[in-house]
C-alpha cells in the first residue's frame, strides 16, 4: 500500500487551520504521518495540531523559507511513497480529496500532482474568479511535450495542495532553498524536464482563496516578478505565458461586470497594482534593499545576506 505523509507549514493558523484539522480527520485516505512545521505560532495552532496527534517541529535557526522549510519537514519525516503538502488555510472540500490526489500516482509516469482550489465560502467576486479561472473541473495530465501548447502554464501548480512521488522528488534534488516563492513550480519544471508527468486533479478539491488588498496584490506580484527574474531558465525551457495575462484580465472584467459591475474601478486598480508590482519585481536588482523589502510580501526573504 502506498505510504503517504502530509506536511503543513503553519503560523497562527486560526480558524482555517482548525477547519483543516477537522477535514483531515474525516479523510478516507490512510495517512502515515501528519507533520506540522511551525514558524512560531502563538494562537494555539501548535497545541491544536498536537491534540490531533500531529508531529510538530519548529523552523530552527534557518527561518522560514518556502522551499527550505518544506524540505526540512521532509528531511525529518521522509518515510513515505507520496508527500502531500497543504497550506494551513487550504481545507479539503470533501472526504475524498486526499484519496483522489493519491490515486493519480497509480500511473507510474506521474511525478507530482496538484489539486483544484475552490474559493472559500464568502470569498469576494475577484477571489472567486481567480480560482475558477485557474482551477477548472477537468483533470489534466501534462508532460514536457505539452510545453508548445501551454508554455509556462505547463508547470503551473501550487503547494497549497500538492503531492509528490518520493522517488521523482528526490531525483530532482527536492525543494530548492532560498527562493522567494515558486518552489513547487521549480520542482514541477525539473520533473517534466527529467521525463516525468504531472497531474492536475480536478476532483481533488480544497477551499483556498485570499482576499488581497491592493497593496498585497502589488506585493504578491512584486514577488512573482522577482521569482521570474531569478528563474528565467524556466521560461527558456517551457516558453512564456503569451496572452494568458490579457485573457485573465478580460475574463475577470466579464465576470465582475455580470455580477458586481460597481467593483470595476477596483478591478482596474488591481490590474495596475499587479502590473506595477510585477514590473518592479522583474527589475528588482536595480532597487535598493529597503525598497525591495518594502515592496515584497515576503519581507524576511530580504533579510538574508
Amino acid at each position, binding site marked *: 500500500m502506498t505510504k503517504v505523509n502530509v506536511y503543513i507549514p503553519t503560523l497562527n493558523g486560526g480558524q482555517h487551520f482548525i477547519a483543516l484539522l477537522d477535514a483531515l480527520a474525516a479523510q478516507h485516505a490512510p495517512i502515515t504521518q501528519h507533520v506540522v512545521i511551525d514558524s512560531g505560532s502563538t494562537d494555539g495552532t501548535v497545541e491544536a495540531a498536537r491534540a490531533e496527534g500531529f508531529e510538530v517541529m519548529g523552523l530552527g535557526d534557518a527561518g522560514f523559507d518556502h522551499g527550505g522549510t518544506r524540505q526540512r519537514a521532509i528531511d525529518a519525516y521522509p518515510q513515505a511513497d507520496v508527500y502531500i503538502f497543504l497550506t494551513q488555510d487550504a481545507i479539503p472540500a470533501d472526504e475524498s480529496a486526499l484519496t483522489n490526489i493519491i490515486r493519480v500516482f497509480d500511473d507510474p509516469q506521474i511525478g507530482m500532482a496538484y489539486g483544484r482550489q475552490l474559493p472559500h465560502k464568502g470569498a469576494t467576486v475577484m477571489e472567486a474568479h481567480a480560482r475558477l479561472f485557474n482551477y477548472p473541473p477537468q483533470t489534466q495530465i501534462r508532460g*514536457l511535450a505539452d510545453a508548445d501548447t501551454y508554455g509556462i502554464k505547463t508547470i503551473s501548480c501550487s503547494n497549497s495542495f500538492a503531492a509528490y512521488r518520493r522517488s521523482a522528488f528526490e531525483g530532482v534534488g527536492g525543494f530548492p532553498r532560498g527562493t522567494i516563492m515558486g518552489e513547487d513550480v521549480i520542482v514541477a519544471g525539473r520533473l517534466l524536464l527529467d521525463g516525468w508527468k504531472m497531474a492536475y486533479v480536478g476532483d481533488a478539491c480544497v477551499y483556498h482563496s485570499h482576499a488581497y488588498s491592493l497593496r498585497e496584490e502589488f506585493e504578491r506580484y512584486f514577488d512573482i516578478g522577482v521569482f521570474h527574474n531569478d528563474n528565467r531558465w524556466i521560461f*527558456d*525551457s517551457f516558453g512564456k505565458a503569451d496572452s494568458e495575462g490579457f485573457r485573465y484580465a478580460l475574463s475577470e472584467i466579464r465576470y465582475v461586470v455580470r455580477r458586481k459591475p460597481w467593483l470595476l474601478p477596483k478591478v482596474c486598480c488591481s490590474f495596475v497594482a499587479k502590473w506595477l508590482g510585477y514590473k518592479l519585481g522583474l527589475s528588482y536588482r536595480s532597487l535598493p534593499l529597503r525598497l525591495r523589502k518594502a515592496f515584497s510580501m515576503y519581507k524576511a526573504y530580504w533579510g538574508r545576506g
Partner: protein
Amino acid sequence: MKWTNLRGIIWIGGSLLALACGVRVNHPAGAETTGRRINVKEYGATGDGKTDDSRFIQAALDSASIGDTVYLPKGTYLVHTIRLVSNVHLVSDGLLKQPDELSAQFAVEKQHSDAPLFRAHRISNVFLSFRAETANEAIYASQCSNLTLANSQLTGDSTNNRSFPAVLWYSCAASRVVGTTITQYGGARESPTTYHPGTAVRVLSSQGITISGNRFHHNGENGIFIHDSGDVEIDGNHIHHNGMSGIQVAFNTAERVMNYRITNNRLEYNAADAVDINNRAHGRVVAINALIAGNYSKSNGFVKGESTPDGSGIGTLIGISGVTLSGNRAFGNNRPALYIEGCGAITANRNITDGAFELVGQWEHIRMEGNSFHTLRLLANAEGRLLDIRHSQIGSIMLPNGIRVDSVSIIENEINSGPININMEGHLKFEGNRLRSGHESGALLLVKTKSASLLGNHIFNAKNAAITVRKTALNVRIDSNFVTSGGTWIHDFKPPNIKINKNTVREHATKEMQ
C-alpha cells in the same frame, strides 16, 4: 472608495515615482546597516594615489566593531595588502590601487600570491563593495564563510601573462560574488594553441557558492573556474572574450562536486567552451545533479577568427551523470553545441542551436526531447544503453558503422536531411518521424540491428530506394509508413523475420520530389 484603497493607490504611485527616478543601488543587499560607518580618512588615509594608505585602512578595519562598515570616500588609495576582519564590512567609493611592482606570477605549484589586495583567512560575515586595479588577486580568501563581494569593479594586469585570478576562494562556504565586473586578469589569448593564466573567479574546494549577475570579460583564462566544489549557483552572468572557457568545472576527489545550477548566463566570444564540466581524469562517472538551463552562447572557440580545439556552445560533459540541459540557445560556436563523452544519465530538452549534438564513448541513458539542432553525430566508439530522441527538429543524423547501443528510439522528429544509416548492434524504434532525403543513398539504411520498428513515418526520398534493409538486419517491422520516393520505395535484401504491412507508397514520384 475606501481610504485603504486610496492609500494603496498613493503607495503604488510612490513606487512608480521611484521607478521613474531610476533608483540605484547604494547599499547592496547583504551589507549590515546596523553598525557604525568608519571613514578611513579619519585614520589618516589620503586617497591621493601616491601615499601608501595600507596601514591607515588596516587601522580602520582593526578598530572596527562587529557590524561596522569601513568606508573609503572618493579618491585613489595606493594599497599593498589589507587583512580583512570578521564581521566588518568594507565599502569604497574610491579606487584601490596596488603598485605594479607587486605583480607576481601564477604557477601550478603556487596558485596564490603573497600580496593580494585583500587577504581573508578563517573569517566570516563580511560584505565588500569596491573598485580596484590590482597587480595580484583582488581578494584571496581561505577557510572563510559568508563572504559577499558585490557591485564591485576589478581590473587586473593585462600585461602579466601568468596572472593570479581576481577572486580566489579556497575552502570557503556560503559565499558569493554578485553584480561585479572583472576584467584584464592575464594577457589576452593570442593564438589558438596557447593561453595565459588569469581567471575572473577561481573557486577551490568550497561549498555553497553563488556567482550571480556579474560581468567577466577579457581575462586570460576562464571566466569562472570551479574545482572540487559543490552546491554552486552560477546565474545571470555575462561572460565574454576570455581566453579559455566561460565556465569550467573540474574534479579532484569528486565527492564534493554536486548540486550545480548554471542558468541564465550569456557566454560569448570565449576562446574555449561555454560550459565545460570535465571529469575525464578521475576515471569513473560521477553523478553531479546539475541543471544547465536558459543560457545563451555565441561564437565561442575562436581566437582572432581561427578555431581553437574547443568551443562547445551548450556544454562539454565528460565523465558525469545526472545532468539536465534545458532551454539553452547556442549559435555560431566552433565545436558541437553539446559534447557528451563517457557519461551516465544526461537529459537535454528544448534546446535550440545551429550546432551538433555529439556522443562519444560509453553512456548509460541519454534522453533528448523538443530540441532543435543541426546534426546528431555519434563517433565510431559510441556505446550506450539508451538513446531516446523525440519531438525534435534535426538537420541530419550521422551514425557510423559499428556503434553499439542497446536501445535507440527516434520518435516523432522532423529530420531534414537523410540518409540515416543505421548499422548498430541493438534495438531500434524509428516511429512517427518526418524524414527528407535528397541523397543518392536513399533515406534510410538498416544493417545489423537486433530489431527495428519503422512505424508511422513520413519519408520523402529523391533518388533510388527510400528504405534499404540489409540481410543482417533482424526482426524488422515496416508498418503504416507513408513513403514518397523518386526511386523504388524499398530495397529489401530479404532479411529473416521482416514484416511489411499497410504502408502507403508513391514510387518514381520525381515530380513531387522536385
